[in-house]
């Protein structure tokens, strides 16, 4: 369970860290803690994995990554972990997950995201991936995104219904 003080800390930092010389001191002041305790608690949350990452979240479209594709493969179950680990090493692979198949409607079980600056570039990267990992014999598909209808931030509380950014593109 998450300790009450940690929960308060999470609520305070979820929208962003203060951009000021002593950010953790400022947070501490808001919570009536001292700076050292805030640092210790955040370090602990990071170590436990509750905080996956601390840093900047970019708007990839604003960085010129206009072509975003979900690339999916049907990999035999016995090979999925090996292939997943291998594919995730490529620089242009931004997310990589095993997910369930849905019969003939959806025969794919390995999902990756490629964020590219053009459609051609993404297709080249996919060809390179297939060739490098000898994936020619496995069914695959590429689903470019056409429109983004909704993309909201990662607020956990107080509405509580918002989590992180997995699978966004």
């Amino acid at each position: 369970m998450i300790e009450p003080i940690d929960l308060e800390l999470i609520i305070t930092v979820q929208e962003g860290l203060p951009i000021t010389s002593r950010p953790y001191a400022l947070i501490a002041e808001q919570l009536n803690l001292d700076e050292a305790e805030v640092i210790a608690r955040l370090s602990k949350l990071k170590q436990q994995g509750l905080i996956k990452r601390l840093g900047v979240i970019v708007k990839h479209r604003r960085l010129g990554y206009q072509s975003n594709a979900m690339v999916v493969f049907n990999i035999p179950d016995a090979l999925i972990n090996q292939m997943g680990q291998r594919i995730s090493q490529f620089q242009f692979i931004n997310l990589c997950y095993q997910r369930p198949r849905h019969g003939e409607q959806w025969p794919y079980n390995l999902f990756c995201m490629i964020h590219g600056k053009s459609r051609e570039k993404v297709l080249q990267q996919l060809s390179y991936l297939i060739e490098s990992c000898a994936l020619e014999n496995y069914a695959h598909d590429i689903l470019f995104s056409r429109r983004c209808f909704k993309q909201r931030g990662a607020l956990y509380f107080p509405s509580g219904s918002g989590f992180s950014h997995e699978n966004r593109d």
Partner: protein
Amino acid sequence: MDEIDRVIINTLQEGFPICASPYKKVAETLNISEQALIERLQTLLDSGILSRFGPLFHAEQMGGALTLAAVKAPKDSYDTIAKIINAFPEVAHNYAREHALNMWFVLATETPEQIQQVISQIEVQTGLTVYNMPKIQEYFVGLKLEA
């Protein structure tokens, strides 16, 4: 955005220190002043190139649940379906994609049980089958888009 901004973005995608003067520490490795880093970071956030600066939480460890789901929305009712789905606060993002399964969205809920409840409600309201594709395994990638 200049070269220094690019280096700042790339560096801060890798992580941010948890210590008393974290900006100073990062600035030193970048050979710029702490003040310059703070100003540039603020400008990048204000201009919308960065969507956020802070922690990314692990949903499941927070007690919550996430899933990726898709529907086959008929062309003539596509926008109506999108509106219905996006009205759910649990829908974190939603994308049109080129496939028979042409609408893909992420659900984020406070508890694992709520995922199925929301899916059932979406099925009732849209009359469509929702294909639920929760992650079975995540393979680590360095989440980084070079600026």
